[in-house]
């Protein structure tokens, strides 16, 4: 593992040199006051990789898993009763995201497992998935996107990454981790393709490394209020499903998609055809388990027909089902959903209750 140093006043130059080779996205503040990743050319210099409020408003998930993605195109006009299907090529250009927070990188690593890319982050690694192999669209975009992380020195009140097997200086899923040392960034290379970004940087000194270590410890110490989650693993699916908590949440949950849309690990999608005349396309769109339509059958039958089942699904999926399947939670503790929820449902409280809440007392019991 090698580390380099980049003085902050040289950041703009570094980025613009990088931008000669590939598209660079950096966090920037928009007219609406929100931070988001924008192409470096359209960001106002001097660049500042640290968004106010700790992180970008939306996770960088959409760079790998866009809101709307074409899977194929078809043309029914050609040929007798024929159907021409054309696989949609994934855009080829490579990009680097500069300033990705460790939680968001970890989220992509979690999704790698679900979409079928090997979680190690090594691009040359094998892929695994269903009988058909990995999701080719995910894989291709993931392949083309280099992630340079920016360690969190000042976690927010809504952050609980340490709770979720992550942390302010966590490295999983990243190709390089940058640490803000005040006047300069410490650039720690984590993968081969991370290395090519640092070719013209000066190596870091041990003092810098030490400084980063102490910042890491300091950041970790700022995250307080860790809570136990062990019982969730021990409790059965049905026991968890029957906790009184879900009815409490369902009373005020709006079943909107705010939490799932801002979530770096939510990945459910819908496949839809769009057609005009004989031509059309098949695409996938972000979907949300909060929507009643998500599971509704054409017949009208709905396996999760009420709010309770739907609000429960989101938390059970993240904190029970994915852990059962993959050995890690489907949440990275970024805290976005806490801020986004219009009725202020706090995922931490939910998880705590999943862990601690006593089962529903049967009707009539004391």
């Amino acid at each position, binding site marked *: 593992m090698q580390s380099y140093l980049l003085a902050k006043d040289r950041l703009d130059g570094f980025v613009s040199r990088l931008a000669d080779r590939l598209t660079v996205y950096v966090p920037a503040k928009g007219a609406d006051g929100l931070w988001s990743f924008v192409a470096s050319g359209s960001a106002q210099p001097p660049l500042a990789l640290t968004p106010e409020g700790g992180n970008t408003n939306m996770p960088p998930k959409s760079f790998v898993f866009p809101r709307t993605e074409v899977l194929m195109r078809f043309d029914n006009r050609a040929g007798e009763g024929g159907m021409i299907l054309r696989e949609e090529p994934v855009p080829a250009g490579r990009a680097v995201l500069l300033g990705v927070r460790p939680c968001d990188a970890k989220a992509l690593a979690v999704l790698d497992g679900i979409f079928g890319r090997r979680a190690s982050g090594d691009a040359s690694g094998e892929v695994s998935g269903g009988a058909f192999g990995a999701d080719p669209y995910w894989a291709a975009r993931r392949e083309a996107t280099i992630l340079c992380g920016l360690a969190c020195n000042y976690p927010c009140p809504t952050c609980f990454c340490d709770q979720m097997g992550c942390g302010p200086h966590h490295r999983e899923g990243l190709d390089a981790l940058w640490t803000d040392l005040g006047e300069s960034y410490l650039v720690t290379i984590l993968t081969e393709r991370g290395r090519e970004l640092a070719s013209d940087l000066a190596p870091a000194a041990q003092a810098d490394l030490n400084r980063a270590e102490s910042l890491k410890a300091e950041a970790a110490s700022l995250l307080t209020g860790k809570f136990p989650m062990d019982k969730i693993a021990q409790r059965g699916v049905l026991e968890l499903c029957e906790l009184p908590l879900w009815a409490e949440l369902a009373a005020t949950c709006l079943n909107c998609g705010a939490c799932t849309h801002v979530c770096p690990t939510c990945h459910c999608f819908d496949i839809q055809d769009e057609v005009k005349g004989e031509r059309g396309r098949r695409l996938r769109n972000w979907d949300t388990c909060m929507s009643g339509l998500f599971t509704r059958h*054409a017949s009208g039958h709905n396996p999760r027909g009420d709010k309770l089942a739907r609000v429960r699904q989101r938390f059970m999926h993240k904190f029970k089902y994915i852990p059962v399947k993959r050995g890690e939670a489907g949440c990275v503790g970024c805290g976005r959903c806490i801020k986004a929820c219009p009725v202020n449902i706090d995922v931490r409280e939910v998880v705590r209750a999943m862990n601690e809440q006593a089962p529903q007392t049967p009707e009539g019991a004391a």
Partner: protein
Amino acid sequence: MNNPYLPYPARLTGVREETEDKSIRTFRLELLDPGQAGAFAYVPGQFAELSLAGVGEAPIGIASSPTEGQELLFSVFRTGKVTEALHALAPGAVMGVRGPLGKGFPLGDLKGENLVIIAGGFAVTTLRSAMVWLLDPANRGDFGEITFIYGARTPGMLLYREQLATWAARADVACHVAVDRPAPGWDGQVGFVPQIVAEAAPRPENAAALVCGPPAMIKYTQPVLSELGWQDGQIFLSLENRMKCGIGVCGRCNVGPYYVCKDGPVFTKAELDLLPKEY
């Protein structure tokens, strides 16, 4: 790399009206690419996404058996946009098939056992596949007694009537086909599936049951089987969640820790009993 979202083009070689209410049609499909047709290896109980460009996809259980050759059979109940469009297709039309998907009945693991196949209404489709596979000379010897119990509302609502007749004529199948409401000319059994199961009283020893049918049938058949001494691990059921991607990613068919499309659709009753009733 193989793109799992891209359907195989297939030609519709036959369409058959199955029921008197015209709600179910059986489609016979032939994959256009011989290579893909050869690679389409499936077992009874698996499903495929039938894909109509511009309309969408519908997950449908495969009704044919791999022992029948490369043509695929799908019996489709008309209930939504895609199935409606499917029903409007005439032989010769070209459409898409994506599959085989999911895990079928674990017939390989059940060799040497007696099998009871219980079907209600139009859920008989994948059980047809299982029956044809089991009765194939290559496989029949691997299994013990085979009991086939199938009920529908009326005689006109029974699927695969010719096939049922050949099964009934065989000595190596105990065939019980019944209807809830008889019609003139019906000389078979009358009664609901749970009743017929109770009358047939299949023995649980060294046996497995494959059960597909409407929720009410499943609900009332289970106590009958329990009464007869069947264990939940011996009973195999097939779920019908709204499967979209078919490869365990999109999340719609998630029930408990399972993705029905990938981990199912066939589950034992024992497995299902540990899940919320979100199917």
